[in-house]
């Protein structure tokens, strides 16, 4: 590109200094070295508009309505408010593309996406956005369709944007992590691909996100960020390799082990025996992961594995931050029937929320408004003391049918005992 038509970028140039890789240098390479004049022009005007933002401390993108044929979402439309000054990037939409579960790629797959993207788009891409999408940043309205048609042919589909089921995210999990208590990969694809129609055609009160973590370390931040968090856990004893543990004590010393492991257990369920072996009161273990994280060679999750499901996590707007609440303390996910159960649960939750949520109200906000009990009754889930941090502190409640509810509880417990014995 002719040097004279390049926008000066004195402020952005400052971001080419320093040792961390610079995204500005990357955009400049698209401007100066790419073989397509279209890509050069888009990069130049994008840099021009970004410099203008840096100078004036304001953003200049506006939303709008852009979609691909047959879908109602998946594109983040961006039209420039200063498009006259920067015409070649005046339409600069993002395509949200669903990643493979676990965010695995081959270099061949990435190259194929790069080839399509430089043909139709700006050449800028992020792996991944905060919801987990591949973000192809910057295509004109027309090329949005062209790019989607091309990559959809070889197996990629759009994610969610707007009031719909959104793209999901799952951790590396069973593919590479010894803490994994579930098949995150399968849960992720089973859940989100059951709702493909709700991903592509926004018709819900607001966004709905699934996130799947294989263990309570919750590397996918699901409790704080997902409407439905599915987290791997176990309910029998932690598996202990006493030889590995003793070797660790021998290497680190008793004081280190007491200070860093024994006394850090939040429910005080660990004891260091005189012979340096370890004793665990598993009934009081809350699966906090600390000992497993510190000495992965000595401790492993138990063998009776499954998932906990928490509902209603979200960030600030509108009523403030909410974490998810336990709705299913434990369920097995082994056979097809188990997977049908979790899909059915997700369907009941989304249906109930679609019927009862207000416009722009996340599932967790609805629960806050109507109370957990109304929500549980709506989705046909029984109450469980694992759902609470503590019982009610306020006496301001009507309890006319206490006896009935108490009878229900004992009947349920009897049933559970009988079916466990059977």
């Amino acid at each position, binding site marked *: 590109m002719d040097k004279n038509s390049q926008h000066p970028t004195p402020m952005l140039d400052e971001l080419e200094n320093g040792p961390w890789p610079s995204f500005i240098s*990357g955009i400049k390479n698209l401007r100066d070295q790419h073989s397509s004049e279209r890509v050069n022009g888009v990069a130049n005007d994008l840099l021009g508009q970004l410099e203008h933002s840096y100078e004036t*401390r304001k953003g*200049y993108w506006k939303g709008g309505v852009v979609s*691909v044929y047959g879908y109602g979402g998946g594109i983040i439309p961006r039209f420039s408010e200063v498009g006259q000054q920067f015409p070649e990037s005046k339409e600069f939409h993002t395509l949200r593309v669903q990643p493979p579960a676990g*965010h695995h790629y081959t270099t061949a797959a990435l190259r194929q996406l790069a080839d399509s993207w430089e043909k139709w788009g700006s050449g800028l891409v992020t792996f991944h956005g905060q919801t987990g999408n591949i973000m192809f940043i910057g295509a004109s309205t027309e090329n949005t369709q062209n790019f989607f048609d091309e990559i959809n042919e070889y197996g990629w589909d759009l994610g969610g944007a707007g009031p719909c089921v959104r793209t999901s995210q799952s951790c590396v999990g069973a593919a590479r992590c010894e803490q994994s208590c579930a098949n995150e990969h399968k849960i992720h694809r089973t859940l989100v691909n059951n709702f493909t129609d709700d991903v592509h055609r926004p018709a819900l009160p607001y966004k709905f996100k699934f996130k799947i973590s294989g263990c309570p370390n919750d590397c996918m931040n699901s409790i704080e960020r997902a409407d439905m968090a599915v987290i791997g856990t176990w309910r029998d004893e932690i598996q202990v390799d006493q030889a590995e543990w003793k070797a660790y004590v021998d290497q680190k010393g008793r004081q280190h082990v007491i200070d860093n492991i024994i006394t*850090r257990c939040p429910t005080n369920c660990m004891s260091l025996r005189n012979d340096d072996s370890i004793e665990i009161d598993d009934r009081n273990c809350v699966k906090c992961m600390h000992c497993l994280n510190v000495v992965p060679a000595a401790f*492993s999750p138990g063998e009776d594995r499954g998932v906990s499901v928490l509902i209603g996590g979200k960030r600030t*707007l509108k009523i403030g931050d909410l974490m998810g609440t336990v709705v299913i303390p434990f369920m097995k996910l082994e056979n097809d029937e188990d997977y049908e159960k979790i899909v059915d649960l997700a369907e009941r939750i989304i249906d109930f929320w679609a019927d009862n949520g207000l416009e722009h109200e996340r599932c967790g906000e609805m629960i806050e408004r109507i109370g957990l009990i109304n929500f549980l009754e709506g989705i046909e889930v029984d109450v469980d003391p694992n759902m609470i941090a503590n019982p009610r502190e306020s006496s301001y409640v009507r309890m006319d049918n206490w006896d009935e509810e108490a009878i229900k509880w004992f009947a349920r417990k009897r049933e559970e005992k009988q079916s466990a014995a059977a």
Partner: protein
Amino acid sequence: MAKKKMRQPVESGCPDGFQYMHPVMVSNFGQWQKHDHPRPGVLRHFAHSGDQIWTVRAGTQRILDVFTLRKLCDIGDKYADGHVRFTIRSNIEYMVSDEEKVAPLIDALESAGFIVGGTANSVAMISHTQGWLHCDIPGTDASGVVKAMMDELIDEFRNCNMPNRVHITTSCCQVNCGGQGDIAINVQHTKPPKINHDLVSNVCERPSVVARCPVAAIRPAQVNGKPTLEVDEKKCICCGACYPPCPPMQINDPEHTKLAIWVGGNHSNARGKPTFQKLVASGVPNNPPRWPEATAIVKRILKVYKEDARDWERLNDWVERIGWPRFFELCDLPFTKFHIDNWRGARKSLNSSTHIRF
């Protein structure tokens, strides 16, 4: 003219990751035994079968141009096995089944300008949002803040000298798409929106804008005979919730849009339950292109945490042990009336005991 025939989409949804996964990970799926951490940026996982897989993690600029993406692919083909994955914090990971490949792979990444690290108790890559580059409501840039900050924190990314891992996040508005972090640098608006009354009735669906306000400060009004909206500025908490559905209610301001710093967000269930981040500093200038004031505060907090926290204490664990008064004292940050929460449920955040450290 004949109408262009449109292609029907194939609603394939989320792709199967197994087709891209490293073969050692496929054959040992669900059969991993343990891992260790031979050096910063490198993980070694052992499978029950006796197989091992080595992972090398590297930080990038996150906003990747196709040249950089292909450079990462070239390294993957030449020095690794052609399989990569990305972490939730947008680092790239190369998996190799042979220890011999690890050192040349690290050299190749570093000589191409990528930063190997981000594992275990390091300062991880800052997770961030879109900012001025692409968002429609940003008060600041995201990639720029992160680039400037990572330039200063790079040694903490490359090494594992922190008491536990440190996750830093940034967000360019109070929606906080960056999420929870041990340290979060987020936009905080300090003045009510400036309304362009000529545009409101054409651009905004007024009842839904009224409904968006968390404090019911917006009401319908008439200005110069036109239907519009007005804001009760005494009630307004300057959150910016009205701006996305109604762009003529401009919340961003070159002077009055500030940055605030929050600490102690932790998504993990490790040791304690997950926690939300808490406000510690505000009024920090939104100062492009390098935001030095925000970085200085982050570095100060990190320094104190590194010196004072015990092994394995995340930032929230550490503050819980030493107490908030000492946190403000050690970090030399002012404690103001704005630190005391008054949103719903706020009394639970007050000290109703005589547990006081002197």
